[in-house]
């Protein structure tokens, strides 16, 4: 009996199908797990305190993030935020400027037509509470009651 030989396999290069499978999985993972182009004005160089408890904020659109650092001369703290005039990068907001109080004015303006308006404080963990007092006072005077402290999850 004549035996038929198996057809000869032609190798057409490297099989890329498993590579595409893995890469597609990675893309889906990154799409779901990362945030792109979301800038809430938080200064990532600030070392924030760690806390076990904490909540995720659902409505960050109504929140203004204020980065608070203590100055070495023990004057008013350095406060930065993504406010009017900031071009994608947090700018300094003065606490006092002569007879003006720019931070208070900004908070009052934002709070005026928005009952849900709140402030996120991103403060340096080693700074003293004294640095935070002018910011909290401005929030209180602008009737902003929703003040949240940004903390890091323990590693």
């Amino acid at each position, binding site marked *: 009996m004549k035996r038929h030989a198996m057809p000869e396999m*032609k190798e*057409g*290069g490297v099989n*890329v*199908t498993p*590579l*595409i499978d893995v*890469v*597609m999985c*990675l*893309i889906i993972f*990154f*799409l779901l*797990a*990362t*945030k*792109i*182009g*979301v800038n809430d004005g938080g200064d990532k160089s600030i070392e*924030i*305190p*760690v*806390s*076990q*408890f*904490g*909540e*995720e*904020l659902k409505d960050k659109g109504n929140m203004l993030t204020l980065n608070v650092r203590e100055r070495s001369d023990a004057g008013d703290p350095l406060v930065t935020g993504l406010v009017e005039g900031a071009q994608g990068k947090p700018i300094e907001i003065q606490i006092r400027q002569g007879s003006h109080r720019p931070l208070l004015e900004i908070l009052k303006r934002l709070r005026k037509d928005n009952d849900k308006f709140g402030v*996120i404080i991103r*403060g*340096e*963990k*080693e*700074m*003293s*509470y*004294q*640095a*935070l*007092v002018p910011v*909290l*006072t401005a*929030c*209180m*005077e602008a*009737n*902003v*009651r*929703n*003040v*949240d*402290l*940004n*903390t*890091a*999850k323990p590693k």
Partner: protein
Amino acid sequence: MKLKGAKSVHYDSGPNMTPLVDVVMVILIFLMLAGSFAGAEHYLVSNLPFRKNGGGDATPSAVPDDPPLTINVDNNATHDGYIARVDQYAATDEEQLAADLASLRDKMAAIGQTPDKVQVVISPGHGVKYKYVTEVFEAAQSVNFKKIGFSTGH
């Protein structure tokens, strides 16, 4: 002489995947570089205290009549840390403070007060480090006090 032409071999191995792999790799690298992972941070949600007097313009009806539970926080004189005083208790760490606040909460419940409505006011000294203020805040939150705010210090 008869020349034998080269035998043309045609491999039909499906669609050409090379451009797809190129594009997909570019997308992957972009996502890896441009994306930032969420979930490393969270927020301690606070409510600044209402005041009957002062700069805040809270309506008087919204101001709770119950006296607030004030936690005074000062620097620890013996080491880098803090001492938190509330009622007759004094705590130097978060665990101890949480236990003290839990007993106060139980006492309030026993005399008919509603602990959930009690406004906890954290009053740190100006020199207390912010990280210790957040620890005190966390201790209050861990025993289910809902209304936690800050005073401008003492």
